[in-house]
């Protein structure tokens, strides 16, 4: 078991009333799964993903990640936990514009305090694996969307995470680029055994996964 959510609630106060963003979510994710979260806009997909990624907090319920109780951890340990085991991929890539491709890839390793020589090797490996060695000195703005997302995925993978969380990873891409990215995810899941949870609108993309979770108004259906 990689992670387990039990009775998760999240709400905000609005005009004296509780508006629920997540309502009684129960979820178990085993290692090696490829899960797609689907649902209309505002159904809580991204919120759920952020809660799983520990970027966001929740108000009630329990969350175990690799048998650590996340809800009892302090921020510092939480950040250590996700920096170690989780990689994030975003719809708008979120690469740092001021850094080159190579430096973007290197950054997570810096925060994990990986040594210089090892860092170089890992980055070189990753550039090689994604066939972007020639682009390593370019800045994100000099790349196409598909290439930027490729770098985004490479950056998520470089820390060798157990779990990849992808928030509409193909939302800004055209169909051909989308297909390439989804194939890549499938390959990572199958060959490298990386657990993937993605948020998506597209039935087609959801089809790449092994399980689909549908959300409506913060509730699992």
């Amino acid at each position: 078991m990689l992670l387990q959510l039990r009775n998760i609630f999240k709400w905000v106060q609005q005009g004296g009333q509780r508006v629920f963003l997540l309502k009684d979510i129960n979820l178990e994710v085993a290692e090696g799964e490829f899960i797609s979260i689907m649902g209309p806009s505002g159904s809580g997909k991204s919120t759920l993903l952020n809660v799983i990624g520990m970027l966001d907090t929740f108000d009630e319920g329990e969350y175990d990640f690799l048998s650590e109780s996340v809800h009892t951890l302090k921020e510092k340990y939480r950040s250590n936990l996700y920096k170690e085991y989780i990689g994030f991929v975003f719809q708008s890539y979120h690469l740092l514009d001021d850094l080159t491709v190579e430096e973007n890839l290197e950054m997570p390793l810096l925060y994990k305090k990986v040594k210089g020589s090892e860092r170089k090797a890992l980055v070189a490996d990753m550039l090689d694996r994604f066939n972007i060695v020639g682009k390593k000195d370019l800045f994100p703005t000099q790349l196409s969307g598909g290439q930027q997302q490729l770098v985004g995925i490479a950056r998520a993978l470089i820390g060798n995470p157990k779990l990849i969380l992808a928030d509409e990873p193909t939302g800004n891409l055209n169909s051909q680029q989308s297909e390439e990215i989804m194939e890549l995810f499938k390959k990572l899941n199958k060959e490298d055994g990386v657990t993937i949870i993605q948020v998506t609108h597209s039935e087609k993309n959801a089809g790449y996964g092994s399980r689909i979770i549908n959300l409506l108004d913060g509730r699992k259906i």
Partner: protein
Amino acid sequence: MFKNYLKVAWRNLVKDKTNTGLNVTGLSVAFAVAILLAMAAVFQLSYDGFHTNGDAIYKVVRTEQTPKGPKVGAVQPAPLAPALYSEVPGVKRIARCVEDGTLALYKGKEVSMDVIWVDQEFFSMFSFPVRNGNDKNPLENLNSVVMTKDGADKLFGSTEVIGKTVNLLVNGEEKPFTVSAIADNILPQSNLDFQIAARFESHNEYGVSKEAWDRQYHAVYVELEEGLAASDFEKSSEAFIDLHYGEGIERLKRDGATADENGRFINLKLVPLKDVHFASFKNGFVEVSRSGPYLIFGIALLIVFIACINYINMSIAKTAKRLKEIGMRKTLGAQRQQLFFQFWSESLFVFLLSITIGVVFSAVFLSDFKSIFNTQISSELLMSPVFLIGLLLTVFAITMLVGGYPALLMSRLGTIQSLKGKLESSGNNKVRNVLMVFQFGIAILMIIGTLVLWGQIDYMRNKDLGFDKEQVVSFPLNGKRNSHDMVALLRDELNGNPDIVSVSGSDSNLGLGKDGSRSSSGIGFEYKGRIVMTNFLVVDNEYVQTLGLNLVAGRNFESAGDSLGVVINEAMAKELGEQDPLVSQLEIDDGVFYPVYGVVKDYNFRDLDQEIAPMTFFMSRQQNLTYGFVKVSPANMANSFAAIENAWKKLEPNAEFLGSFLDENIDRTFRREKTTAKMITSGSILAIILSCMGLFAMSLLIVSQRTKEIGIRKVVGASVSSITYILTKDFLKLVLIAFVIASPIAWWAMRSWLQNYAYRINLSIWYFVAAGALALVIAFLTIGTRTVRAARANPVKSLRTE
């Protein structure tokens, strides 16, 4: 990791050139100016700090409770010092000194020099290092003198002059002295200044004043035994005072003086050596105020403060642009401290760059600064470890605070919010607004200060002083000839020149001449059973008409021999309290009565910070005149000046002619005010420029942040002017609040400053209105250009960019 920070910092700085440029320029200039100002202030504060025994040395002053209130006398009678030394316990060393100028002669060369007449303990008390010659006790012999290196150079053209003989003009006679030692040049931060030091006993006054307790003409410095507090000494001197000043105390009691809180009428007070430069006796007690240098420090700090506010505001405003980065870094595992350190190191980078440029700037403009503000900065001070460490610590503290605050804000942002690009910014705006109010408050405060200071200076320059300052030339009578003869010879020489109106002399200058020395004398005598005090001026018979003084009663001196009476001013007439002052007979010398010939209208013979005091003119061949005065006609003033100089050259070929018009002399007396005014002016100009730079950068950011709003407003039909109004009004409101806060503070500060002047301007409301309007207009122009451009932009374009 750190390399990575630096890289990101550098790219960020390069990417946003306008912002970086504004920040670095502002900070560098502010640092440069602050360094210069701080050095000037440190220099002033270091006055007399170089004496190794300085903590034990005091200047002895005497406070007296007169019927008109307390008075402080800094000059003492000759017998006081020896008596103090032998009768009051705790005196380790004591020295009398008179600072004076006299003519030094060597092989036909005549040089006027600053002379200090001192007791032999002088060189063991004070740290004026003697390098050559008798360094144990250089003034052991009565005819020994010590010369400074530049003094020796000026007279002998060499510093190898031990044992040579120099003649000094004492009371009109040349007297030979032997150079016994050479001292280092006097440091600029020394209050005691001289080129020659001679024995006190050789001063011309000594012969007649040796035993006289009522002739006060010199300063006394005392070095106390180790561990003895000044207050203890003052206490134990009370019996001494009662013994030697008994008669004076009786007279004060008789004339109706009230005793001080301890029931005493005359006290000795010790002013610590380091306070002497900052001490004022004007109000009848010893006031030590270092407000001048602290004011300069304050300006320096305020300027840095303003530049720092710019930096903080711009950094916070820029946060919006870096939200994505912050969020991303957090999702990649950056911890709060790491983010803090990253942003802080960026600030450190900017600050180090600015301080480096600032130091270079200040070094480049050092000499200009010194001459413009006529201040001294010793270069040793620049290199002194205390100054350097102080500078480093200050910079570190500033970087910590100024760089730290935005860094703290940024590192505390929530991950999701920053990734979504949302800023909970209401709190930040409040901080920003408060800081900007501060900034403009300071700027407005300084502008008001500038206007009021110049107003007062202008007033002092143009005030009718009661004498003719435009057409009178004064010059020190620093030649070898007898001063009375010299005035007569000059009169003959200039006779027949149609542009020369009259020639006269007195023993005190008006204002501050080119020789830079000032003196005043006063006497007190019994008049109808009480003591009357008056200033006392030795003049020659044409003084009144030469200076254009108006006689209100009686007559002037009629001829050079008409010396059995005196001419007084209105204040003196009032002091005498007679219906008709012309009937008064003044007992100026014991047993000799001088009738009052005439009364002149009051004129400002002292600086404008003091009321007009009683004055008595007196003619005597026995007492030397020290300054000549020549009145010229308004036509051909330059020619007339040249004619005077030529006549001087002819009569005193070896002495330097240091003539100047009296209005120049008067201007010189408020050189200090002018320096302060110049500093505040440049401070306020800098303050307003820096504030506007911040405002400008702010308006750029605000406009870019509100592009969408502007677009929407235009689409629904807002006019250019209404949009400009919306964008500008928030800032102008801040300037107005700043004005409301700054005005009362400025009013209070300027009012207390003006209290120093007996003759002063009214604090009219217009000074405040003008400053406020100026700040408002400048602020409007700064933001206006940007906002108008934004308001005129095509809305389709601005909406698309969102």
